[in-house]
């Protein structure tokens, strides 16, 4: 295909691109429209806690969706349980503990800080430290080479001067 041919196809491609964008827009809208339950709360604070908890807990059945966005049977049940526990006056910590006892670390999008999750939390920091150390030592060595080999000592200065003089 030569350039001319590509150009003549360009309007078609642009249209296709537009359609794809629109499709993604629709998909996005679908993902955003969370499962609507008709839970009733006494205060907006309770409602916000419910939303936060179901946003941060992961649906055990469907891999990569939070409870808010999942239509899975177990997610529906867990949302109902969260609602019940909030209305029973349980704290967020107690609710998270309830989930942990049944579904383990899997349920948390933000894993708890435990011995098993130390590497997960601080692994990236360790890698950053290693990388930083390597970068630092390389740059220090480079500077040392700069200073050692580009600054002339007095004998070398004299010789340089001689050379310059003899030329002039």
């Amino acid at each position, binding site marked *: 295909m030569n350039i001319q041919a590509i150009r003549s196809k360009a309007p078609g491609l642009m249209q296709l691109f537009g359609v794809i964008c629109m499709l993604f827009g629709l998909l996005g809208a679908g993902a955003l429209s969370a499962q609507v339950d008709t839970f009733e709360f006494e205060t907006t604070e309770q409602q916000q806690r419910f939303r936060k908890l179901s946003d941060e807990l992961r649906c*055990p*059945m469907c*891999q990569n969706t939070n409870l808010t966005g999942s239509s*899975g*049977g*177990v997610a529906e*049940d*867990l949302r*109902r*349980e969260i609602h019940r526990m909030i209305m029973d006056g349980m704290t967020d910590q107690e609710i998270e503990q309830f989930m*942990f*006892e*049944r*579904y*383990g670390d*899997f349920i948390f999008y933000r894993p708890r800080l435990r011995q098993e999750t130390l590497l997960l939390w601080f692994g990236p920091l360790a890698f950053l430290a290693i990388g930083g150390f390597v970068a630092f030592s390389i740059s220090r060595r480079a500077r040392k080479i700069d200073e050692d080999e580009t600054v002339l000592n007095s004998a070398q200065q004299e010789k340089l001067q001689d050379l310059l003089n003899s030329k002039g």
Partner: protein
Amino acid sequence: MGRVKYFFPVIGFFALALLLWRGLYLDPKELPSMLIDKPMPAFELSTVDGEPVTNTDLPDQVFLLNVWGSYCLPCLVEHPTFMRLSEEGEIPVVGVNYKDETNLAQGWLETNGNPFAFSIEDGNGRFGIDLGVYGAPETYLVDANGVIRYRHVSVLDETVWAEEFLPAIAELRAESVQ
């Protein structure tokens, strides 16, 4: 040190590659059960036939707890294995009818046969949450003291039975003899 340190990036690369290679073969769907070595959660429900049932009704020997539903196709796949186990009297099987409707569950048992000593009816899935269930079928191995010792998620066919359950059950039975 000396020249050795020039090999550090290569060694690092291979270490990381090995780690990620292993990661390719992990099953992200495998969700370790939190209830292993914990007692069966307490329940006070009724069976699919409408009889009241609690923890005291559970067999006082090693038994299987199978989570099933009439809507669940994989349950039909593993069904012949449970039928065989119950016919041969190898091990008692207790059912948990998970998020199902009573009449559909009864119909399913009538059509396909009933391998269960009884089926605990968990219509709203509340007992399932206590068990850490996330979808039928799941099968738990419970010891004579009512402590959960093993969990298998998805279909329990003859291969899984022979490779995972038989050794585990032999171990539990040897334990209870001592």
